């Protein structure tokens, strides 16, 4: 204590300061509770409501992320009554009036998921804790979607998943606060298998290259399940790291494996790279087992087709939505998106726009932003006019059920966007499955108080 002695006054001053800090602390802990209504987390108090758009702006899925953000900005405009209203005009529910949600103007904050679970959760947390976002939406990776969905469940806000195709999002990792409009790999398998059978027969040997995370695993499993059901044989399934860039080391073994079908369970830039390299390797010009070697890309998007260019011609895959659809909803959406940005929207943009509208509509019908009430308004909700025909938000797993599109790379594209043609619209009944099939448990809603 000898050291402290000469400076007693300073110590006393510091002690007083520390004491003051301690006294102020309890108030601080409860600050959030005093600042707002006690019903639910981040209840909007002013005349605006804040939504959080969490999309990948960097990394392998950055193209999708950029398009998602465009779609959200468009959706916010339409919800606030600006622009031409887009799919609000064709949407079967007429609750929304173009004056925001529940009379509050819609504002938004954005964050970069970097296609990493950690970064995505950090930016979602910022939006919830600092920006008072009442709902988080977006993302283009199932790994991220599952991580953020878990966070939103903990924090007590609604999560409207963006582009996420893994079964797990509404399967074993489903949460009460999470909702998904996009389809999943189970539906892809069920829709794609009959088309593959007609095109390539029942005696095929498949080789899978799979992105090494939840979506890749899920897709590989579903495609295996359905193609083996046709009588195909799976020669091998190799996992590749997400964002690998160079796939040549994974493609070389395909040549000598005796397989005659290559299934690329890749998405985004990964798919662009692996498909381009597979074509450069001359795989598509080969004859194996007396048959033409073919490539299948189970999950397609126009953005990817654009990236891969010539190489997508004649390749089959499935998609959630395509801008060339001729129903009223799709036409209205393509028109208002095209007028604002100068090119047609991708399926990522479509699913995100739809999710924003569905959330807003559910809040309007529930008359509140409280997660448990909004969730109940979404559960079992049947709607039409959002570009996919009649759709059901199933209550048992918070998954949307709708027709699935099987598409093929166009042989003679008429423009740089006209790259895919719809081969078949698989009806909803054919892709429906028992909610028990994928396991998991929703658990109770969390309102965050």
């Amino acid at each position, binding site marked *: 204590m000898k*050291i*402290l002695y*000469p*400076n007693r006054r*300073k*110590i006393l001053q*510091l002690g007083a*300061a*520390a004491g003051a*800090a301690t006294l*102020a602390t309890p108030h*601080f*802990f409860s600050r*959030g509770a005093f600042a707002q209504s006690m019903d639910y987390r981040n209840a909007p108090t002013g005349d605006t409501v804040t939504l959080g758009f969490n999309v990948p*702006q*960097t990394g392998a899925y950055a193209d999708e992320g950029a398009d998602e953000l465009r779609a959200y900005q468009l959706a916010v405009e339409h919800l606030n009554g600006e622009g031409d209203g887009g799919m609000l005009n064709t949407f079967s529910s007429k609750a929304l009036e173009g004056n925001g949600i529940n009379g509050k103007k819609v504002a938004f*904050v*954005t*964050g*970069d998921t970097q296609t*990493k*679970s*950690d*970064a995505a*959760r*950090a*930016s979602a*947390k*910022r939006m919830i*804790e*600092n920006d008072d976002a009442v709902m988080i939406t977006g993302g283009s990776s*199932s*790994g991220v979607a*599952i*991580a953020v969905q*878990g*966070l939103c*469940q*903990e924090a007590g806000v609604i999560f409207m998943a963006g582009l996420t195709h893994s079964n797990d999002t509404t399967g*074993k990792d489903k949460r*009460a606060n999470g909702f998904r409009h996009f389809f999943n790999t189970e539906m892809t398998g069920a829709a794609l298998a009959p088309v593959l059978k007609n095109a390539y027969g029942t005696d095929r040997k498949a080789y899978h290259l799979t992105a*090494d*995370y*939840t979506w890749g695993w899920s897709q590989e499993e579903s495609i295996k399940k359905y193609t083996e059901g046709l009588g195909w044989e799976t020669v091998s399934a190799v*996992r590749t*790291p*997400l964002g690998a860039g160079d796939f040549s080391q994974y493609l070389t073994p395909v040549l000598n494996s005796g397989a005659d079908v290559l299934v690329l369970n890749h998405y985004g830039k990964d798919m662009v790279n692996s498909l381009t390299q597979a074509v450069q390797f001359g795989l598509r010009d080969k004859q194996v087992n007396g048959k033409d070697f073919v490539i299948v890309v189970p999950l397609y998007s126009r953005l990817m087709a654009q990236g891969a260019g010539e190489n997508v011609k004649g390749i089959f895959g499935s998609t959630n939505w395509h801008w060339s659809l001729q129903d009223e909803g799709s036409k209205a959406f393509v028109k208002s998106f095209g007028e604002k940005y100068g090119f047609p929207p991708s399926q990522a943009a479509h699913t995100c726009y739809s999710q924003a509208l569905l959330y807003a509509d559910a809040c309007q019908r529930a008359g509140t932003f409280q997660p448990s009430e909004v969730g109940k308004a979404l559960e079992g909700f049947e709607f039409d006019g959002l570009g996919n025909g009649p759709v059901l938000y199933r209550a048992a797993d918070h998954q949307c059920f709708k027709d699935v599109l099987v598409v093929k790379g166009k042989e003679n594209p008429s423009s740089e966007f006209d790259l895919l043609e719809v081969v078949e619209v698989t009806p909803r009944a054919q892709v429906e499955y028992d909610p028990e099939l994928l396991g998991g*448990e929703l*658990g*109770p809603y*969390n309102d965050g108080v």
Partner: protein
Amino acid sequence: MLGTFSRSDWLLLVIFSAVVLTLPWTLEPIGAAYPDLLQKFAIYGIFAVGFNILFGLTGYLSFGHAAFLGVGSYAAVWSFKLLTMNVLPALALSIAIAGVFALLIGYISLRRAGIYFSILTLAFAQMSYNLAYSVLTPITNGETGLQVRAIRKSAEVSLRDGDVRIIDQALGIPEVGVPITNLFGMKMSGYPGFYFCAVLLIVCFFIAMCISRSNFGMMLKAIKSNQNRLNYTGIHTRPYLIAAFVISGMYAGLAGSLLSITDPIAGAERMQWTASGEVVLMTILGGAGTLVGPVLGAGLIKYAEQKVSSWNEGILHGAFSFLPEPVQDFVVEFFSFFVGEGWHLTLGLMFMIIVIFLPGGVMEGFRRLRRAFANGASPPPRPVATTTPIAERD
């Protein structure tokens, strides 16, 4: 050991504690006062303080410290999955496992010095990352990340998808949905989580101070200044180095554990080389060899990552609204390169400017300011606190 503390050392500790504990108020004006970012400040502060024990004191530049951060994270999540949601066992387990891991890697890597040591540690970290990413998927759940889940219903469910939590089950603690981490019932997310991290940061800072002022610390500094001379005088330096490496590995393990405590998920990307590089940046940015510098650097980088990346054109228009319309558009256009997804650019520029003009980091900037003020004002310059011996000698 405490006897070697000077008055200014105690003062530094008290001021540091006061500053850390009042962060939720003082950071309010710059929009950084929300629990997640505050937690990150404290956690990466611990990481950087630990890294500085190795790099700042001995001069050995490890490029693989993220491996320990990752190991700590995984250990903590496994503790939540297998034992209990209480954070204390997770802390102990993480520090212990990271320590053992650091001993293994340090024992091999420290056979070499300089660039070879850096490359060895980088190689080990990259190996750990790849193991976590693909080979050890049953333990790490690969890209998706390891998460806490509800208690599994039967033994057939794999441990990745359903937890057991032996201790919580034995004590009969009820669980609704997926449970959250706690310290004897106190939630470890939000502000309580921050204060938990902050207290640990202060404790870690204190320990780092003790090390820096001790004979052991003196030996580490001697290694930095001239290892050959030490060897010639008959001192075997490797045990000191290994000890420093293990201590700093344990700090990283603690930081990793806190990351999992405040947000129970562990992903392989925490072990990536970019994460290892980040802590080097933090330390150099703040001032290597100083006590406070690494914490400052960690704060700066995390602020850039979380906040600068969230500024978009709308926010810029708001900030520059005092300018006339055409000028405003130009300025916003210009600055939008540096915010949002361009935050890496901002960070890079900041780093370059600091390294070129202030090689001692932000702390050197402070010292220069203080010297300038001391020369200008009438009171004679007081002896500068002995918190920055290494940097000043360079």
